[in-house]
């Protein structure tokens, strides 16, 4: 049993499943965030209240945090193993043709995680009372943050980076799960491209509209 748990492929399998779960969560978060564009704060506040109080969502929240923890810790562990596997690099560099964004997954992942920490300080820690603020008025808090240019720059950069991360992650997860197919793999790659543009663009459009047009 320990052999399967500690095998490299098992770790990648777990990471891929965790990643796919996080991928399914993003559209839910985006759907709620888009309500920030309404001038009426009620729909967003109601949705945020539902997410904070509904028991099933609270359970899913724990699953989500566990998933993030697994994805991040396995990602760091596997990266360290990868670095150790090549202690001496090539003086002439590497010119092999690769999927471009796959080369920077640890760095795009680290950027997303850093944003996540910032996001927790701004919202989740307020909700659980660790940071001062009104947990029932996230609408005003979000609108307030989107008026700060520095925050908007960080936000837009981080969501572009999320797009880069998602583009490789989406199809890579299928390959890791062994789901490779002559016909379906190109379809998965196309969906990955569309998803990795639409989701970050959906998040990015909120500060852009609130910043420039309101």
């Amino acid at each position, binding site marked *: 049993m320990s052999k399967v748990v500690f095998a490299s*492929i098992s770790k990648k399998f777990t990471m891929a499943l965790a990643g796919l779960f996080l991928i399914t969560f993003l559209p839910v978060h985006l759907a709620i965030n888009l309500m920030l564009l309404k001038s009426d704060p009620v729909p967003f506040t109601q949705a945020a209240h539902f997410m904070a109080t509904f028991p099933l969502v609270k359970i899913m929240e724990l699953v989500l945090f566990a998933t993030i923890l697994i994805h991040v810790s396995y990602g760091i562990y596997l990266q360290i193993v990868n670095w150790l596997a090549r202690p001496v690099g090539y003086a002439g560099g590497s010119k092999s043709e690769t999927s471009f964004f796959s080369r920077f997954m640890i760095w795009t992942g680290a950027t997303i995680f850093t944003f996540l920490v910032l996001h927790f300080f701004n919202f989740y820690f307020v909700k659980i009372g660790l940071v001062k603020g009104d947990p029932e008025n996230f609408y005003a808090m979000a609108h307030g943050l989107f008026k700060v240019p520095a925050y908007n720059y960080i936000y837009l950069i981080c969501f572009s980076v999320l797009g880069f991360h998602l583009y490789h992650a989406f199809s890579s997860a299928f*390959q890791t799960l062994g789901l490779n197919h002559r016909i379906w793999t190109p379809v998965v790659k196309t969906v990955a491209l569309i998803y990795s543009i639409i989701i970050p663009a959906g998040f990015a459009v909120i500060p852009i509209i609130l910043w420039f047009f309101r």
Partner: protein
Amino acid sequence: MKLTLKIWRQKNAKAAGGFVTYQMNDVSPEMAFLEMLDALNKKLVEEDKEPIAFDHDCREGICGSCGMYINGHPHGPVPAITTCHLSMRFFKDGETVWIEPWRAKPFPVIRDLIVDRTAFDKIQFAGGFISINTGGAPEANLIPVKKEDSDNAFDSAVCVGCGACVAACKNASAMLFVSAKISQFALLPQGRIEARDRVRSMVEKMDELGFGNCSNTGACEAECPKEIKISNIARLNREFYKAY
């Protein structure tokens, strides 16, 4: 053709290595890359200097021993060939050529451009074979095999175990090699009998030897002289999940 060669020189596994620059003033574009190194070695011997150690055997692209990292590519800049098939006409007059050994912890440098690739043998010995007694050669058509499966098994079996996949991978992963060795058996009825134990043992050995993990970058596929596809890695993953 004039070339500046920057070649990794290292006396033995424990010695510190470094690049030494060699000037070649009379390289013919019709030479093979290894012939060019032979010419350099002849010159070095005549000057009473130590020749450059590099692996080579068949010089026909079959044995897989002539691996070296040339200008950022395993086996040089031309796709789908081994170093011995690399022609000097692919280099420009006046070019600087960086020649390095494979770089991976499980492939330690023995001398100059020669690395110890017994790690691949160890993975093979862990299960990359059929141990059942097959007796004499039976009639080939007695066991029906789907054409697509036999073609894919053959495409995997052409892996020469040169190590270019490990050399190209940013993680020094051996997944393409292992996946080819798994696939060549997994797709055929004779190989299915021991498929479960084979994949368990070979993956365990691969991990134990310190290779990195596959992150699906595709560099191995791009550099493999035998054009082994990364769809084999997905098959290896499937075989591994089925085995537990």
